[in-house]
């Protein structure tokens, strides 16, 4: 049983398109996250979300928006994709005071 699963694993799309990445966790965690890993492997938090609060990293363009239909899901919607959005996106979840459990990542390539 995969604890944090995200789909798709690979996503190739053209500039200007709108795309979504889905994430689901079966750990019963209260908080979920999206991280971006750039070409230099640097990991940067984009969003954190629990059922009460969405915290957005102020450097994230507003073309990126998280959507949470319920506690176990946090999807990432990206509008008007740009070349610079190419990266690996990781979903994660956590319980208070614990480490984060990460999904296997979605490699997004914008052409």
């Amino acid at each position, binding site marked *: 049983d995969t604890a944090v699963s995200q789909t798709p694993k690979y996503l190739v799309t053209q500039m200007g398109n709108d795309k979504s990445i889905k994430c689901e966790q079966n750990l019963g965690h209260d908080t979920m*996250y999206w991280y971006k890993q750039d070409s*230099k*492997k*640097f*990991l*940067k*938090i984009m969003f*954190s979300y629990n059922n009460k609060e969405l*915290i957005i990293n102020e450097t994230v363009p507003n073309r990126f928006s998280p959507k949470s239909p319920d506690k176990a899901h946090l999807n990432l919607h990206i509008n008007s994709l740009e070349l610079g959005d190419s990266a690996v996106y*990781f979903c*994660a979840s*956590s319980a*208070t*005071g*614990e*480490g*984060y*459990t*990460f*999904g*296997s*990542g979605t490699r997004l390539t914008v052409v």
Partner: protein
Amino acid sequence: AQSVTQLDSQVPVFEEAPVELRCNYSSSVSVYLFWYVQYPNQGLQLLLKYLSGSTLVESINGFEAEFNKSQTSFHLRKPSVHISDTAEYFCAVLGYGGSQGNLIFGKGTKLSVKP
């Protein structure tokens, strides 16, 4: 706010040699500390963590890390590495107390084990 510095971007070693991957952190609040490993083209796996108690923590595959509060360090060590340890290693810090922050990562250290 917290920050993490991994002092070495790349560490090449020969198989069966010892290795140390260095990590220093900065924080105005108390912290939990973590090491994650990322094998080529894979996701992030938790290697070990320090939450409280003994400052020396160990993983199931022979890695260990020691929390040193006075030096604000959490270095990762292994006495004898294997080819299969080749991966990117990330140190991470999570502040707590007051409003909880998010997990902040260092820039990673690429460990390359050569035969």
